[in-house]
């Protein structure tokens, strides 16, 4: 572990340097800068708050309370303002996400192709409403405005995998597959 922050306000070791790997065709793209490095590099240049929040979310999966304090300390932007920016943008989340983030597309093309039945099925199958995380921490269910796969409508994304041309039956099949996969992994871990 490299602790690149020399003067963190009070909490020295909660951040870790993490190298983000992006699979497949994006592999050779420029490596993303870590949250830690970004904070350390911050030189008071204006306009850095959103990128800082984005890397915090990438690091933690959400924006924890302590990250707000931390960013505020380094940038001298009041915590209330940081909070105001977080709640303005739909990308930022203040609660941890489930293991699988299910994003049902609610764009126009999906809407006219029956997205409502897909969303109802997902709520039913996952047992949570839009915006919530299941109690076991497995699934977070969100809707998005448009994934941009309009020709495969209706569409949903589970983490980074897109599933298209959905029907209520195929949705249930896909969710069951993810459930089984996790069960198998857990069982393998026990034995």
């Amino acid at each position: 572990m490299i602790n690149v922050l020399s003067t963190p306000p009070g909490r020295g070791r909660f951040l870790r340097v993490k190298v983000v790997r992006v699979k497949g065709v994006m592999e050779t793209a420029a490596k993303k800068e870590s949250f830690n490095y970004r904070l350390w590099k911050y030189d008071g240049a204006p306009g850095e708050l959103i990128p800082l929040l984005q890397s915090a979310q990438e690091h933690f999966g959400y924006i924890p309370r302590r990250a707000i304090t931390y960013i505020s300390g380094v940038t001298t932007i009041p915590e209330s303002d940081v909070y105001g920016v977080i709640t303005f943008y739909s990308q930022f989340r203040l609660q941890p996400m489930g293991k699988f983030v299910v994003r049902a597309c609610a764009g126009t093309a999906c809407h006219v192709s029956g997205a409502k039945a897909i969303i109802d099925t997902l709520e039913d199958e996952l047992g949570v409403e839009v915006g919530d995380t299941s109690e076991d921490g497995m699934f977070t269910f969100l809707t998005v405005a448009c994934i941009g796969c309009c020709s495969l409508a209706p569409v949903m994304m589970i983490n980074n995998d897109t599933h298209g041309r959905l029907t209520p039956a195929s949705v249930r099949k896909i969710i069951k597959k993810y459930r089984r996969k996790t069960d198998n992994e857990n069982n393998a871990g026990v034995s």
Partner: protein
Amino acid sequence: MKKIIVGMGTCGLSAGAQPVFDRLKNLSDSYPDRCELSITGCIGMCFREPLVEIRDEKGRTIYGDVSAESAEEIFNEHVLNGRRIEDERVIYGVDTEGDTFGSEAYFLNLQERIVLRNCGTINPESISDYEEAGGYGGLKKALTDMSSEEIIQTMKDSGLRGRGGAGFPTGLKWSFAASNQGDTKYVVCNADEGDPGAFMDRSVLEGDPHAVLEGMIICGKAIGASFGYIYCRAEYPLAIARLEKAIAAARDKGYLGENIMGSGVNFDLKIKQGAGAFVCGEETALFASIEGERGMPRIRPPFPAEKGLWQKPTNNNNVETFANVPWIISNGASAYSSIGTEKSPGTKVFALAGKVVNGGLAEVPMGTTIEHLVFDIGGGIKNNGVFKAVQMGGPSGGCIPSSLKHTPVDFESIPATGAIMGSGGMVVMDQGTCMVEIARFFLNFTQSESCGKCTFCRIGTLRMLEILERITKGEGTPGDIPKLEKLSIQIKEASLCGLGQTAPNPVQTTLRYYLDEYKEHIENKKCPAGECEALVEFYIIPDKCVGCTLCARNCPVDAITGKAREVHTIDQDKCVKCGKCITSCNFNAVVKR
């Protein structure tokens, strides 16, 4: 040497291009002397993705609906044995004579591609591919042979109008920014494509990122700016990755940086990721977001050309606009203005989606009719449905009914219908789409995306949404329609930015063309399209029902009866229209009617 090219845009990847690419990589690695493997962006034929193209001495051949298995077959037959597979899978091809063939050849033949000139043909991650296709030729001409005034004059003469939706003349906009004095000026590229149903900017960024960079550098010289920002939505990770690569490659080659091509012009740029706010597509909100604040629009004047980003003179254009610029500089203003209509020259990219057969991207000259786009290029309506309307311009736009299908798409004719050009999303609707429900859908979107600054937009859209929700639930009253009309006018008049000023458009256009449908909901409590759940009855199709009892077990009010392995029926008196039977049926036997 044969070249194998896999379409790796977001549309291709979500249809399964990655396993196809992996399989072809394994195969081609065994024959390094006979073929090379490359990737490309979206060619626009999203409805047949994943696509694989083979380029050899006989020309180009594109195969559609490729799976990992059929990729292997194509590799063995076409690449190794040199025999093209002659069946439906060949969707497009060009032989050595320049003649086209293939089952979907008409889709590309009916288009005129300027913005999409390289999309689907070059490798977007290779700057040399772009240069071979004539890339950075426009930049060279602009830097070495042209003065700033000449560039702006060329843009004015070309007649190019902003492709983000408003259609403001680009050359005029540049001249405003150029005439304002300042030590620092900015060029901003708006890549915050937030309209649901529009994906042309994403395809350009993923398929031809250098064209956008080239356009921005030319703009930088024209207005005297040396720094630029690309504001791209974070929902487009692949576009951002390809842009980052393109910027790094352009810096290496000296197209970005100091003293570009020895001309004394300096220009560099940076990507800013959006964080998911539709209102940030509005330019002043976009500047606020780049500055790290909540993306709320600012009062104009002062206009961005005077005081924009960081209070400096700024020129902001959309992705598609910038992608047009290098072509115009290379080919001259008159070549561009000769295409399209007199007041709306050039071409426009449209994203066809919804109930259309060929969902994808099509670039056509301005002035092409809606009918030509939907039927000749788009292939008509899915499942032999009836064409009801086309929605243009996203949440700011409106629904154009089928009776106006002869309307040419340009900046004059479309606004006359009450819709807007918008960024070019075209969602096609058939007889099963309820227009009141569509209006509710868009109001729901704009209501949740309103930043909250202007009272009429913040509260007015909520009131409109409540009325529309009431109508779709069968609780509408005769006074609702005048209320909607009144609120529409007030919100338009009293909102600061484009979001509020256009938010009532979907309601106004549906009221204008589908008033009967509203009345049917309010007076007779019926939804003619059979979409609004509260106003329809749920019905089990006897032929499809296998008697699995799943719906009966899921019904919360025991309204469904029937024995195992026998057709079930719904008791309409008991039914509460919750929709559980539809979502639980594995045989699509439950329908609304």
